[in-house]
């Protein structure tokens, strides 16, 4: 701004008096700095120089001038610098850095002078470079470099050249793309690392990008031709698609289609039920990710079933990442570092689920000093501690969270419920150790558990356990890899201990152990590969029932355990054919073996499977292969940058899934069991095509994306009407495997910067299932496509946050969804002397639409430097409008009359206050 006002003053001050300029000066300097030179000139000529000392540099001058004008001396002195000078008025000289001060307006400033004499000289446009410092928080981080010395006869374009080298190795970087933001200009370094770029004069934002090299960004103010060298560091994970830090053009440049990220830190401002921070709930506000209902467990991604999501916590699978029937996520929000969600082309290293990957990574523990974070809300208390173990090398992260919901149940008037209890907790322990530059070890342990009991005679317990150990090793510049060992378990128990003689204990568990080796190889910066193998062993105990207590008449019963081995090999490569066009191609081969010991039935072909069509029962010995399935999975995605702020992406992927949840409920419940593919249950398959357009506006302040997808599913698991699942030894007689199809369009508008930020998403998507067979008993809805339970065509989410000051902010969420499909009773009938109800075709009707508004007010503690702890308050109101959103509609017979009832989860506004503390 200062320069600009000077220029204005100049324009106003009129024509200069150049009287002293012509005066001749004789002067000599010996080993003095420029400051001394200027002060001696001041003494001798009576002129005063105005300048900033830092412009002058420390160069020592030895010069002699005899009878020359001051102008000559100054020209000579500043010839090798970016300094210009200007005689302001008598005896005052202003020095400027880079810029030149104009004392007359450019020719034709006031239009063409028609009568002027045409002078035949090369046209030299005067194009002054104006530069105003913009106040923008994000841009402040970019360093500004001024290049070249302005001349009065400046040009519109100058050449910028230079050299890019690897900061660590000192070697030149070839094929580094240098992009000029907002302008369609790109340069690439040659094999020696040199580049040449013609740039408009003035401000340019240069960003560099290359595989294996950390992206960089510089603001260049160009006054003349000049040079700019880049010393760049390697990016840590060469081929990892995951973004380690938020980059404002990531959405444009990322090659992987259908990828979402949840900003864990920003999610603390989003008001959620009972003040619980929850990354999974935030994910449902993103396009393409929904739940079957408010408080329903399980996520549905792009029209997929809830069992088709691979939820990984530090690479270990979590079977049921939700507490309390889905009201809260079982992932401690304070320990999570980042969440990447792949809903389109899933990278080849992941497999085993059809619809999505939720790759959740915990933060690395601090290795410098102790950090503690704690929060207290109406339902849970949470504490996270980070401590160094070996300073600057290793650290330990411990997070624990517990719910004290029992007071809610105890405070009830209802006497029969006084004995009810519901509680949950989860704990996570992580150790990260950087042994040396080339070796790093991470170990994570996780446990979560829910206990609930409605009546004094039954207790339900379900728990997740996960463990992962990962060793990252760098072999050389081009080759690095990691070895992973993970183990996960999910189990539930139902304990019934009443007064009668049928007390029982029912148990279920699924466990998996995986070893995975992944390698990353960089052939050159343009072609990089990622390959590896994985082996996973599953063990399912599908259920057992035992009498509980001496008097129980329950007969002990147990379904034999199931075992299977899933092996996979994968290779993927990222190919940057040009800086604009990149392809990420992956191939995964998965091989599944259902293993004995076990018993399998064979059924008559072309007959419905039931007790009557069993032809053979086969016994398998331990580890004998019962059945083998395999599949080649292709994962392709490509990106083309049309303009630096506009790109298009397309993807294709196919996936196989060998383990399925068995649920004949309309929504997910914690006592749904997982079943391995076997002789009679085939793996599920899916194919997805996706296409997207990504556009950034206004210097990436706004990100817009529009993505479309079409998905085809095969062998998805469903059930005959009214089937029994729990403790069913011959579940294949109840299972139906059918087709599915889903398609949709997802729109996202996100504002990342400024006081007002957040996103708006709209998804139109449909999801259908078809269960057809030549036998009526294996057909649903006459063998035609019908809407899936989670088919919600319109889904709108608005997440917004307004920062009044650094300390106070207000946030609001709004959700609107089409009501989910339901099956209604459509009449009554009498058969065999008994009254029955007849139901409509499956999912023929819909419950009323869902909408909800939540408000939150966040108060940050003050930001005094010396303050020991940093505090944060969240006051939120969930469902401000008090909308009574039906969760389900059902019918009951009451005094011989049938009535329709609806149940809802939160039908009135729910206020809460949460206090967070961090030090």
């Amino acid at each position, binding site marked *: 701004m200062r320069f600009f006002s000077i220029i204005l003053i100049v324009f106003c001050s009129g024509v200069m008096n150049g009287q002293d300029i012509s005066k001749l000066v004789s002067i000599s300097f010996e080993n003095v700095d420029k400051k001394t030179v200027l002060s001696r000139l001041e003494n001798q000529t009576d002129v005063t120089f105005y300048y900033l000392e830092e412009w002058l540099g420390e160069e020592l001058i030895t010069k002699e001038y005899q009878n020359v004008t001051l102008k000559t001396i100054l020209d000579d002195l500043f010839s090798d610098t970016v300094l210009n000078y200007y005689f302001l008025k008598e005896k005052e000289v202003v020095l400027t850095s880079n810029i030149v001060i104009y004392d007359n307006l450019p020719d034709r400033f006031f239009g063409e002078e028609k009568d002027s004499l045409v002078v035949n000289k090369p046209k030299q446009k005067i194009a002054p470079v104006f530069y105003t410092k913009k106040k923008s928080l994000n841009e402040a981080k970019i360093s500004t470099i001024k290049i070249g010395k302005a001349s009065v006869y400046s040009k519109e374009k100058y050449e910028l050249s230079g050299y890019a080298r690897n900061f660590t190795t000192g070697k030149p970087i070839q094929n580094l793309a240098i992009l000029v933001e907002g302008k369609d200009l790109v340069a690439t370094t040659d094999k020696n690392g040199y580049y040449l770029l013609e740039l408009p004069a003035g401000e340019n934002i240069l960003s560099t990008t290359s595989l294996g090299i950390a992206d960089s960004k510089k603001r260049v103010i160009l006054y003349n031709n000049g040079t700019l060298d880049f010393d760049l560091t390697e990016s840590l994970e060469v081929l990892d698609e995951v973004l380690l830090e938020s980059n404002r053009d990531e959405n444009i440049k990322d090659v992987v289609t259908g990828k979402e990220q949840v900003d864990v830190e920003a999610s603390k401002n989003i008001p959620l039920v009972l003040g619980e921070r929850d990354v999974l709930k935030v994910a449902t506000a993103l396009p393409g990710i929904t739940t079957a209902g408010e408080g329903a467990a399980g996520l549905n991604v792009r029209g997929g079933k809830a069992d088709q999501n691979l939820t990984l916590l530090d690479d270990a699978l979590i079977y049921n990442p939700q507490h309390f029937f889905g009201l809260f996520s079982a992932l401690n929000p304070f320990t999570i570092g980042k969440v990447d969600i792949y809903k389109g082309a899933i990278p080849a290293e992941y497999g085993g689920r059809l619809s999505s990957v939720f790759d959740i990574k915990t933060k690395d523990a601090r290795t410098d000093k102790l950090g503690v974070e704690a929060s207290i809300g109406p339902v849970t208390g949470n504490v996270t501690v980070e401590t160094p173990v070996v300073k600057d090398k290793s650290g330990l992260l411990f997070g624990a969270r517990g719910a004290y919901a029992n007071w809610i149940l105890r405070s009830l008037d209802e006497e029969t419920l006084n004995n009810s209890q519901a509680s949950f907790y989860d704990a996570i322990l992580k150790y990260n150790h950087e042994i040396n530059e080339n070796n790093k070890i991470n170990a994570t342990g996780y446990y979560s558990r829910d206990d609930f009991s409605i009546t004094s005679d039954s207790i339900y317990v379900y728990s997740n356990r996960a463990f992962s150990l990962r060793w990252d090793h760098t072999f050389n510049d081009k080759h690095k890899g990691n070895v992973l060992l993970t183990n996960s378990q999910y189990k539930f128990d139902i304990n019934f201990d009443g007064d009668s003689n049928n007390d029982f204990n029912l148990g279920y568990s699924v466990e998996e152990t995986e070893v995975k080796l992944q390698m990353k190889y960089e052939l050159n910066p343009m072609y990089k590969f990622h390959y590896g193998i994985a082996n996973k062993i599953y063990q399912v105990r599908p259920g057992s029932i035992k009498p509980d207590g001496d008097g129980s008449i329950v007969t002990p019963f147990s379904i034999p355990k199931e075992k299977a081995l899933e092996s996979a090999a994968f290779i993927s490569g990222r190919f940057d054919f040009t800086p604009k066009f990149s392809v990420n191609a992956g191939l995964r081969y998965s091989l599944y073996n259902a293993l004995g010991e076990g018993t399998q039935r064979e059924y008559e072909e072309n007959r419905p499977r039931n007790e009557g069509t069993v032809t053979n029962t086969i016994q398998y010995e331990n580890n004998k292969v019962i059945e083998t399935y395999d599949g080649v999975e292709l994962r392709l995605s490509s990106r083309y940058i049309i303009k630096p702020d506009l790109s298009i992406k397309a993807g294709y992927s196919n996936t196989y899934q060998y383990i399925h949840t068995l649920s004949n409920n309309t929504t997910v419940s914690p006592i749904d069991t997982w079943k391995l593919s076997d002789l009679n249950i085939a793996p599920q398959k899916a194919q997805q095509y996706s296409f997207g357009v990504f556009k950034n506006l206004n210097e990436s302040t706004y990100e817009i994306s529009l993505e479309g997808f079409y998905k085809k599913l095969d062998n998805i698991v469903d059930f005959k009407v009214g089937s029994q699942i729990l403790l069913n030894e011959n579940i294949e007689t109840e299972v139906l495997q059918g087709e599915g199809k889903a398609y949709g369009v997802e729109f996202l508008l996100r504002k990342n910067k400024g006081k007002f930020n957040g996103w708006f998403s709209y998804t139109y998507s449909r999801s259908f299932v078809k269960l057809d067979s030549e036998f009526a008993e294996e057909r649903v809805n006459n063998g035609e496509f019908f809407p899936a339970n989670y088919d919600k065509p319109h889904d709108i989410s608005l997440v917004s946050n307004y920062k009044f000051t650094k300390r106070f902010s207000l946030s609001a969420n709004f959700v609107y969804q089409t009501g989910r499909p339901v099956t209604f009773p459509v009449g009554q009938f009498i058969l065999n002397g008994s009254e*029955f109800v007849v139901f409509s075709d499956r999912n023929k009707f819909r419950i009323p639409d869902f909408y909800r508004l939540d408000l939150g007010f966040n108060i940050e503690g003050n930001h005094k430097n010396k303050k020991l702890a940093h505090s944060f308050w969240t006051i939120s109101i969930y469902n401000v409008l008090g909308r*009574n959103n039906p969760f389900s509609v059902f019918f009951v017979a009451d005094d011989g009359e049938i009535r329709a009832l609806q149940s809802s989860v939160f039908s009135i506004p729910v206020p809460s206050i949460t206090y967070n503390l961090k030090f």
Partner: protein
Amino acid sequence: MNLENSAKRRFFRLCCILLLGGLVTTCVEPFETEIESFESILIVDATLTNEQKQQQVLLSRTFRFNEEQLVETGAEVGIVDDQSTRFEFIETEPGKYLTPSEFTAVPGRDYQLIIKTAEGNEYASDFRSLTPVLEIDDLYAERTVNGQGVLGITVFADSSDPQGNAKFYRYEYDETYKIIAPRWSPVEIEVLSKNPPEIQFVTKTEETRVCYGSASSTDVILASSTEFDEDKVTRFPIRFLSKENFLTQNRYSILVRQFVQSPEAFAFYETLKEFSDFESLFSQTQPGFITGNIVSRTNSSEKIIGFFDVSSVSSKRIFFEHIDFFPEGPPPPFINDCETFSPLFFFLGFSPLIDALETGFFTYFNVNDDPTPDEGPYLLVPKECGDCRVLGSNKVPDFWEE
């Protein structure tokens, strides 16, 4: 397996409770819907048996909740076998179609049910053949405690098929019980004139002290030998009567009919049964339309409810008395306390006694030996206490054995 249902039911309730805990006023409330969801569907109740009798087919339609059952009249109903013999049915009362003569299903033949409604829609079942013929091995009653901890008598059935062909059973029962009016009088009051009140005593001509009540099963009772060890049904509970159940106050008899079912018919009835329990709707189990084996020939997408099965039937009857199982007594109480009351014979120009008798709810029991000033001269009791015909038939059933 009811465990699953009860588990889910409980689970669902918890959600409500959490919300009731001061957070939410209600979580379940009436659902107001504009949705017109009624569908009129033909119901076919047809089981051809190997019993020598007039075979029966019942046709009805679905009806709106809380309304009366609608029957399907005017249809042409027939069963054809694989030798193209057609057995016609004749509508004897609305919706009830009987063969004019007795006939039985024969093993080794395939039968198909064909229906043509009055509107001209045609329906046909698939071909079914007679299921294996099997006797009930044993039918017996025992003193037991049921799942709810109630003491009583359970009627059990045992069945087994040495060939292993019969695995699925459906049971129906008819129970008959002797009723003895506890406050019976050999005479009754005959009203001669209301005004002025005038009565006379007459000796009852009809049997009104000992009657026989009867009832049929209203549940779908299904058993499968696959749920038992050794492929047989043992100690399968058909009927539970609590120690206090009036039906066993005197001699009780139960006739159990065992239908050997095809696996498909069994699956159909099993699913029906699952959804007949309204309570289970709380559990969010995925409901749906239950497909039988009858399809429309005129409109393939039309829904029909019903399963035409050709079942072998065997039956067994047993008799027992309460004292056989509970010699210590006491016998179950009568369904009414049978308190007496004595309306005045004449009061302010009318007769409360005659008015009470004319309601039909009371009958004469005895003379009021020691009336208070506001009592009349005779003791009346609720009608069932003095006239057993209210509760049953006074005709001794043919099968009855004392």
